[in-house]
């Protein structure tokens, strides 16, 4: 059976999967239900109502992937594809500072001073490791997806690709819905392939829309039913009594669970409310 290339037994893959890397989200509860963080090598879709913190999570992940290997991170670079224009450089700078201070907190005063002077611990160097693409139409989005393969060959340190948001250019002005489905499924296959071959995490941020089924309106993720099959994992962010929660909707290996988180000036952190228990579904 070795005649067919790329064919491997599940036994070989088991040991590999146990060494699979995760990218921490900054919030311990969320990391706990994700068994470490966002999985590398898989496509994760994150969706939620406006203002819940999707872009914040995207920026946080782009910063967290750069944590050096000595401190439990990956020391990698990030690609941020912005379709809405919601990426604020000042906010990224703030989050990077918050992340660095979080690392430095683990050391004594003396070590801290030495470390803080090192060049790679400056927020600016964190920013320099984020490759930013600004997309203004859906053709540009398709073009970037096609170009990413070549780009990733040249920049082998990239460990995460964040697309914020994947829906924006496909929602309005699309007359031919069948064409939209074809383009989106082709794009998702390419992203799957990129994630697998380069072993990086792909995070797609999605918006919500209203759907009318069985006599009631409820919110679902945008782009329709066919898109819901194009990702490996899905996380839905929602409000619950003035608190933000993240719920794992779809995953091949994780059970459904939800965890609270909060958005602070330093980025995504644990929720500071009284009931911090993780609710298992």
């Amino acid at each position, binding site marked *: *059976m070795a*005649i*067919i290339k*790329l*064919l*491997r*037994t*599940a*036994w070989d*893959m*088991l040991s*590999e*999967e*146990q060494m699979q890397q995760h990218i921490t989200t900054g919030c311990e509860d969320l990391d706990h239900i994700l068994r470490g963080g966002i999985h590398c*090598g*898989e*496509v994760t879709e994150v969706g939620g109502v406006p203002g819940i913190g999707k872009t914040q999570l995207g920026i946080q992940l782009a910063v967290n992937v750069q944590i050096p290997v000595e401190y439990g991170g990956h020391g990698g670079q990030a690609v941020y594809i912005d379709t809405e224009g919601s990426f604020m450089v000042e906010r990224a700078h703030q989050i990077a500072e918050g992340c660095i201070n979080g690392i430095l907190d683990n050391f004594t005063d003396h070590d801290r001073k030495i470390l803080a002077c090192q060049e790679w611990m400056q927020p600016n160097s964190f920013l320099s490791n984020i490759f930013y693409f600004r997309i203004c139409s859906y053709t540009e989005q398709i073009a970037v997806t096609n170009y990413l393969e070549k780009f990733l060959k040249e920049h082998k340190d990239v460990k995460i690709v964040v697309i914020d948001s994947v829906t924006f250019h496909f929602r309005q002005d699309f007359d031919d819905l*069948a*064409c939209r*489905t*074809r*383009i989106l*499924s*082709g794009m*998702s*296959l*390419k992203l*799957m*392939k990129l*994630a*697998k071959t380069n072993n990086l995490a792909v995070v797609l941020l999605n918006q919500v829309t209203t759907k*009318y*089924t069985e006599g009631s309106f409820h919110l679902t993720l945008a782009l*329709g*039913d*066919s898109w*819901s*099959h*194009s*990702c*490996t994992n*899905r996380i839905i962010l929602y409000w619950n009594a003035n608190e933000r929660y993240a719920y794992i*909707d*779809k*995953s*091949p*290996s994780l059970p459904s669970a939800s965890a609270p988180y909060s958005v602070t000036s330093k980025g995504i952190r644990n929720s500071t409310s009284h009931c911090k228990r993780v609710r298992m579904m």
Partner: protein
Amino acid sequence: MLTRFRVEGEGERSSMAENDDLGIERTASIQNPTKPSSSIGARVRATHDDDEDEVRVSLRPVLPHSSSDLIHQEAARALSVMDSFHQPWLTGVELLDDANRNKHVLPTGLEGIDVLLGGGLREGQLIEIAGPSSSGKTQPLQMQVCLHSASCIADKGSVMFLDTCNSFSPNRIACMVNQFSGPLFKEAKERRLERIMSSILCQPIYDIFELLDTLHQLESTLKHTVKTGGYKICLLIIDSISSLIAPILGGKSPQGRLLMVSAGIVLKKLAHEFNLAVLVTNHMVGGEGGIIKPALGESWKNIPHVRLVVSRDQQSNVFTATVLKHTMRVAYYIHVSEFTCNTDINYSQMKNQSKNHRILNMLILHLYNVPIAACF
């Protein structure tokens, strides 16, 4: 439609005729060469209802003192060459034999699904499972099926998993194996786990062309192992075939539908020839009136032998499966009514045979290559 083959050679005639009760007459006559060193030339004439085809077959040189046995041998060789031009016709008896001997049923381990499927996944069939997202297609259904079959058939063959959405999780499979292994010592558990996991093969596929390529490679590999007697594959799972076909289906050109139907034909051919069960997953799209239906359209509906729809009740974590199409269940009904129709038309030809014999004697030809079939 009767087909006759006649093999004629030069020189002295000696013929061997074969006539079976199906009405196919095959004659081969080889003539002795007048000169020892010349090769036996044979002319094959195939006649059928509409036109005649002539094909030349030449055989190797025969020694001067050739006996009639050798002539018969050569004639049989010529016939086998002719047989390779088209798939052999099979009677119902031969097919039933083949079904009983080779086409086993693979239990899925989930009782409800097994009951719906009439025992489990039948080898030689293409089974489709459709369902909305996170309805239990991949986890636990696929995993369960994959794993249960792997543990049942670990010695006989392996399970091949073609993964299009990076959702193959060896960890989850290992958990399930350990869950169901019962009270065993740790080493025995490890060995069992290794044995089962080593018989599950996984490959990521991101393109319909990659899929067709892999299937063709698999076909040639399996042909090779059939001859050499290596281990074989019992179950092929594709998760999910709709994500491979969705980017090409639709639009003005029929290219997408062509590729989809070709993939279906190749899968069914693999299933029948090499006795494996093929399981594919599909997703759901919105239909008229807000009812969801399986994706891939009307052309795909006829391709799988068995179609199941699964859904999941969010609150209670209960999964339901419904059968949309099943050859065994419906076939009985259609079989009876078709039979009634046939007896009226062909009664004169078949009146001497019993009822069951009549059905079993219907000629069945498996057609996988349309252009060749069309020339007959």
